[in-house]
């Protein structure tokens, strides 16, 4: 278990680092996919199978592909990045902010002594049926709100697409 955690964490952090530092946009997205996979593996490790599958289905199957499409639509088709980005004042400030955030979070976690003395997690996984019952039970309001949100997003996409079709005529 320990080895699995460290390996997957390494892959995840590597993917995340590459995703924001690489020059070629498509390479960025491929690293992002590596990162998503790492996160999904963490979910499986944490016994959240359903969330892991959803993570792969939505993040890799939909979000990453969507980003690839956006790259294809906005950049030249080979996906080369534009002019080189310089390491300037902004870069240093941004990195400093990020480092401070990471330090702060780590400090907070270390300072919280409870973190070290948690009980080990459960052995069995959660049945999908329980999640389904949860949707129409305790969490019916957020579930419906989410449905409304997704419908709104869908209608918005259709409206944008229609706009283009009308303009083409």
């Amino acid at each position, binding site marked *: 278990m320990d080895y699995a955690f460290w390996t997957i964490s390494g892959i995840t952090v590597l993917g995340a680092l590459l995703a924001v530092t690489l020059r070629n946009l498509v390479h960025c997205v491929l690293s992002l996919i590596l990162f998503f996979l790492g996160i999904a593996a963490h979910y499986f490790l944490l016994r959240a199978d359903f969330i892991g599958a959803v993570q792969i289905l939505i993040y890799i199957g939909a979000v990453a592909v969507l980003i690839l499409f956006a790259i294809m*639509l906005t950049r*030249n*088709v080979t996906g080369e990045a534009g002019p080189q980005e310089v390491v300037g004042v902004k870069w240093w400030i941004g990195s400093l902010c990020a480092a401070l955030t990471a330090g702060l979070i780590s400090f907070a976690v270390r300072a919280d002594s409870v973190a070290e003395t948690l009980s080990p997690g459960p052995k069995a996984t959660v049945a999908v049926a329980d999640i389904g019952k949860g949707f129409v039970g305790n969490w019916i309001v957020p579930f419906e709100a989410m449905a409304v949100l997704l419908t709104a997003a869908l209608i918005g996409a259709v409206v944008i697409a229609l*706009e*283009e079709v009308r*303009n*083409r005529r």
Partner: protein
Amino acid sequence: MIQQISPIPTGMIETQTIEVSIGPQHPSTHGVFRMDAVLDGETVVGLKPVMGYLHRNHEQLAERMTWLASIPYTDRLDYFNSMTNNWALCLSVEKLAGIKVPERAEYIRVIVSELTRILNHSCVIGFMLQDLGAWGTPLLYAFREREKILDLFESLSGARMMCNYMRFGGVRVDMTDAMVAQAKDIVAKFPRFLDEFEQLLSNNEVLLARCQKVGILPKELAINASISGPMARASGVDYDIRKVDKYGVYGRFDFRVPLGEVGDVYDRYYIRVLEMRESIKILNQALRDLPAGAFVAPEVKLRNFKIPPGDGYGRVEAPKGELGFYLVSDEGGKMPYRYHCRPPSFINLTTLEDMCLGHKVADVVIILGSVDIVLGEVDR
């Protein structure tokens, strides 16, 4: 500095076009033919046919050799239909030299040409379906029929494709009774094949969806671009040289010229099917009426063959369209002074861009397939 706002009136996503070279090595360009296509996504916004990869100097070669020696070279023009190529050259030379062709030879010429036509049309449909992605199944069905016709040609002329069969004033070898029987057998069985073909293809949803309203060639454009053959007739141009010129003995046969309305790929497909049915009619009549007699004009001396000075143009209705030869003979008369070929594939290809613009990449290949080109004829 504030970024300049570029005026894009349409509000469309500004996509980058890419230029793709389809061919000369591409599975569906029917030989070494190239199309420089400019694509916007999948849509074709520009297309330029590029030819000449198979240029073999046919016309210049013919001007350096005797009249007779050019006949084998015409086989290589449209290597699918060597019979009609032979006939076009022979017809031009006979017109120029004033040679009368005997009855039997005329009938034999009609028989082999119409066999060539059904061979060509069935294979063209097969190739077009191959371009549509039908994995060669229709093509192999067409090839099965083609083999029978090629067997007949082989027993007739000794060669399957490069027949080199016709001579000035007739044909090289007579058609024996056994061969006539063989031809009758082929013709009798062909309608069944056509029915099968049509049953499989003509009402196939995918084929209809892919072919209808794709690659429309308007009638005016077809006339102005001097398109000929099934392609012109699919656009509704009533122009069949067998009817217009009544060369050979075509005046004696009863057949009709099918015409399309829309001029799209489906019309070009279906006109070919209908033409095959009409060819079967002609073949039945020709095989029934085949007269006895000489198969080559006895007065023509092919050795040391000379033509008095003059010029002339002879044309036939080849399966792909009007195939004509313009010949000039000067004082020597042993070889042509000028030899010009009017290849139907080449001229039909000139409207490719007009037909393809605005369609998808997938349509370009079937439009090209429906034009029916043979690169030997396009590049010469």
